[in-house]
């Protein structure tokens, strides 16, 4: 295929996406009853209503009128902050532990049954225990993020480190590298593709979990915002907030995809 053919194929895909979106929005708009003034609206709001509400929210994202009325930017900020704290802590613990497990098959085998049992537990299931022990709802939400990110990173790191080619370890043995250099120059770069794959999977699941956790704990965050707007029967806000979480998830995934690209090596 020549360059022109490839480009036109990509253009065709973009064009198809745009057409699909237009058709979808058109059908959505047509199927929505036009609200008559004075009568309470029924059914879902249409895309035009959602867009105008979205514009309202985005144009003033940081206002704060008390606990039940905060700008979308502030709510998103709370969620992102919880995510970054819980996620970074999980990444730190999981990578350290994963390297240890990957380097010692005995320990790996000993701990693997427990990891396998803990891994499939929904991170939200821990919530009551955290609320009981930590006694702080926001920190409990952070712990939920921690639990949701821990296992994928741990499993991937251990798998990646255990699978490092013997040759690379032989080189570090021949060169008598100190354990720190061995870790920094050989083990981590060698396992980096697997570790970043784990980071990428878990940032997605962490973002999914934070919305649910915030619905439970209430107070602040995008999840709470969705729930609060539902209680206010503001479906336009709910729909826009849902789309917004999807967009943030996309941005996070894109970030880790680019990180993966820089850390992947060809043999």
């Amino acid at each position, binding site marked *: 295929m020549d360059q022109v053919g490839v480009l036109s194929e990509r253009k065709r895909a973009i064009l198809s996406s745009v057409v699909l979106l237009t058709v979808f929005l058109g059908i959505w708009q047509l199927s929505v009853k036009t609200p008559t003034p004075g009568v309470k609206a029924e059914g879902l709001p249409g895309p035009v209503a959602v867009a105008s509400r979205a514009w309202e929210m985005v144009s003033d994202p940081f206002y704060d009128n008390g606990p039940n009325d905060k700008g979308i930017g502030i709510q998103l900020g709370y969620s992102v902050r919880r995510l970054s704290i819980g996620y970074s802590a999980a990444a730190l613990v999981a990578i350290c532990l994963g390297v240890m497990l990957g380097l010692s098959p005995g320990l790996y085998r000993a701990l693997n049954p427990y990891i396998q049992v803990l891994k499939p537990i929904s991170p939200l299931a821990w919530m009551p225990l955290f609320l009981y022990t930590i006694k702080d709802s926001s920190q409990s939400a952070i712990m939920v993020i921690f639990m949701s990110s821990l296992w994928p990173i741990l499993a991937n790191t251990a798998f990646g480190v255990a699978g490092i080619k013997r040759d690379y370890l032989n080189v570090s043995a*021949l*060169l*008598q590298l100190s354990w720190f*250099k061995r870790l920094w*120059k050989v083990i981590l770069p060698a396992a980096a593709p697997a570790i970043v794959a784990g980071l990428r999977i878990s940032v997605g699941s962490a973002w999914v979990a934070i919305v649910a956790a915030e619905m439970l704990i209430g107070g602040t965050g995008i999840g709470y915002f969705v729930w609060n707007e539902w209680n206010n029967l503001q479906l336009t806000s709910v729909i826009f907030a849902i789309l917004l979480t999807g967009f943030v998830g996309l941005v996070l995934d894109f970030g880790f995809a680019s990180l993966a690209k820089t850390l992947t090596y060809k*043999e």
Partner: protein
Amino acid sequence: MAFLEVEYVSKYFSEPNGQQLCVFKDVRLHIQKSEFVTMVGHSGCGKSTLLNIIAGLETSSKGAIILDGKEIDTPGLDRMVVFQNFSLLPWMSVYENIRLAVKAAFSEWQSHKINDYVQRYINMVGLAGSEHKKPAALSGGMRQRVGLARAFAVQPKVLLLDEPFAQIDALTRGAIQDELMRMWAATQNTVFMVTHDVEEAIVLSDKIALMTSGPSAKLAEIVEVKFPRPRLREEILDLAEFGRIKKHIIQFLKNCAHEQPANDTTADDVVGARRVAAEA
């Protein structure tokens, strides 16, 4: 006392059914300082395992390795290996790969001294201009030049070459062998190489150690190659003596292949091989 002494080294592997499989038995080999010794044998005779034992990457089941008067059983910077599959770190550039080794060997050197030294070895193997390429961007021949530069740059007491030319295309192989000979002549390193390329062994070596086939392989014979140095490969290949040695070794390897595995007829085979040599 030889510089590198392999004293009655044996290697057993445990099979899944609990039996001990003997790879090779009581290998005794002495290598003098600055000598180039090559071990030739069929696949499975354990020659690469022996090389790894000398490198300290594997342990022997019996026997000892003595280097410069000291027994060794762990890896060390006094021995560097050039691997068949190059074993370069793929996330590092050519320069970084060599620099990692140089920094490990000469940790007391200052940064600019290390950089100059690394560059000198890169130039020596003709890779100037490719310093910042990753190994994946290089041909097999170029990768092994990096492998050679890395090994020589460390200035080890012993250089261990594990079929270093096996994965390099035939056209490049000769050039890299010449490269190795030049570097070896300049540094006067002690070299232990394993290969199953007989011609390569004769061109490069002072002595060739012949292993019988495994399991329970033994060191059967040591052939001395007394061509003067520096050697020119084209001239050596034409010598009658070259043909004679080559025929002798190939005959030996052929006899080994007919041998029943795991019995004790090795001694007879050695005699057989020697007789062929005498006739040739």
